[in-house]
């Protein structure tokens, strides 16, 4: 699959622009910092996921002075041409059309425009709190497992309902409240257990891929990467919720569940979060994305569009080169403010100044 053409209007600093990358090879967008290179990748990512990989709000993505941004893309997917059109509203509802039909879910989008993103912010997944690691797993699951989207929604909603009930208890558990709490335990226990099992299964299949990616990026076969899913609920979520009930009521929060779990990452037995060097952490963050990218490629039968945002400024030339050679073939869009490693072959190089000057 590949992006043939992207039209943006009123998106970030682009009043109106047309971007035409090479659909089967690498396109590099060059230019100084702060000139809108990442915004191009952000737009492509938005079309595939319905959100910004930079974590920006729609309000921030729509140009100042405009109420709506319009993103239109033409893609080649398995020999067919697919058109995606997104109308992004500063406030209120935004909509996405796939071949002029409204997209019903994020999964619809992901199937039409699969993207994998690597950005300097990925470092947070390794160094930051557990939420980033849970998101990595959940985002990958939404791409890999058709049932994951519904399960994630149920878990989120059941958790919010249970937590609301716990707050209303104000530290005391009446028999009435207990009867209702049991029902929410059941809901959260059911959906939550399914999510935990999906995440465990993913960790299992991801571990080997991540290790392979890490070893080739680091150029060191001796590095062992382990991914261990740390579950807050020992021996079944439903039982754990029941056991935690008294404590949960006292504290007014759900103390066990998939929202309290973590993914422990170790390098040769050392905790990556606290004991690895910054270089190792960066390398591991990229390996995690690469591992997911490979699993998704196997599932789809073709590689998602790869978005590499400013990764070369973060890696030494050797690792940059290894990253490029590790990538499955397919369309790759790269932004760079620094010269590319010499061996990286770009089918086309686009100067961001040209895009900004374009009024089509």
């Amino acid at each position, binding site marked *: 699959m590949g992006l043939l053409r992207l039209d943006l209007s009123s998106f970030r600093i682009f009043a109106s622009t047309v971007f035409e990358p090479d659909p089967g090879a690498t396109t590099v967008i060059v230019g100084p910092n702060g000139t809108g290179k990442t915004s191009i990748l952000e737009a492509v990512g938005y079309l595939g996921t319905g959100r910004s990989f930079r974590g920006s709000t729609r309000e921030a993505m729509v140009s100042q002075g405009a109420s709506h941004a319009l993103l239109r893309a033409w893609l080649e997917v398995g020999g067919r041409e697919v058109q995606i059109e997104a109308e992004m509203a500063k406030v209120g509802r935004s909509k996405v059309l796939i071949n002029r039909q409204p997209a*019903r*879910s994020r*999964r619809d989008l992901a199937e039409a425009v699969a993207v994998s993103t690597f950005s300097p912010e990925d470092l947070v997944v390794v160094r930051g709190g557990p939420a980033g690691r849970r998101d990595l797993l959940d985002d990958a699951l939404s791409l890999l497992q*058709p*049932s994951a*989207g*519904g399960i994630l929604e*149920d878990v989120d*909603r*059941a958790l*919010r*309902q*249970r937590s*609301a*009930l716990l707050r*209303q208890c104000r530290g005391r558990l009446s028999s*009435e*409240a207990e*009867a*209702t709490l*049991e*029902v*929410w335990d*059941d*809901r959260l226990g059911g959906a939550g257990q399914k999510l935990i099992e999906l995440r465990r299964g993913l960790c299992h299949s991801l571990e080997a891929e991540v290790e392979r990616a890490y070893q080739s990026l680091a150029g060191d076969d001796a590095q062992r990467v382990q991914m261990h899913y740390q579950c807050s609920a020992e021996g079944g979520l439903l039982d754990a919720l029941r056991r935690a009930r008294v404590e949960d009521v006292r504290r007014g929060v759900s103390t066990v569940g998939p929202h309290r779990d973590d993914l422990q990452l170790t390098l040769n037995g050392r905790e990556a979060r606290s004991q690895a060097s910054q270089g190792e952490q960066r390398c591991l963050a990229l390996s995690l994305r690469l591992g997911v990218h490979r699993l998704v490629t196997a599932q789809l039968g073709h590689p998602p569009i790869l978005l590499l945002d400013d990764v070369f400024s973060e890696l030494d030339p050797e690792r940059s080169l290894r990253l490029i050679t590790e990538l499955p073939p397919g369309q790759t869009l790269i932004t760079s403010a620094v010269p590319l490693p010499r061996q990286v072959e770009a089918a086309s190089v686009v100067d961001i100044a040209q895009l900004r000057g374009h009024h089509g």
Partner: protein
Amino acid sequence: MYTPPLRNLVDELGRLPGIGPKSAQRLAFHLLKVPRDDAERLARAIVEMKDRTTLCRVCCNVADGGALCPVCADDRRDTTTVCVVEDPRDIVAVEKTGQFHGRYHVLHGALNPLEGIGPEELKVRELLARIEPEGVAEVILCTNPNLEGEATAMYLARLLSPLGLEVTRIASGLPVGGDLEYADELTLGRALEGRRSVREEN
């Protein structure tokens, strides 16, 4: 911009569900143009509806001025089967099937702690009070197939089962006359879970 009475009306209309500021404005200006009689008829209809509509003392459906609702007033209905719904509008939907001949019970909502709705806010006590006097043998839990509706159904099932009556839950699955390929994966997944073996007599 508006005179105070007009502003007032726009604000009131805008508080109705599904009515945004633009629609409220359009409705208000429409009412400004219609003859006084028409406007008065609307105002009277609203006030009369508020004054005269009460809840049926049996099933909590909407009823006219303290009377029983049309379903409970109909003595041909089977009193041993009760269909529990969230909202009076759901009765209309079930009645359209023509396949249910029992009575109803309206909960007026579903369990939803986020909105402060627990069992005390629903007509649960009223339901329990009906079981023995009416000789109810089966309760059909007909709440919505979403998280809150399912939780409510489970809550009621736990309360009712010890009373020694049959408690059933409506099935969920595919819309009749639809195409499999258009079903969303959640619905289709549920339909697969609830599959039945095919026998001659079916």
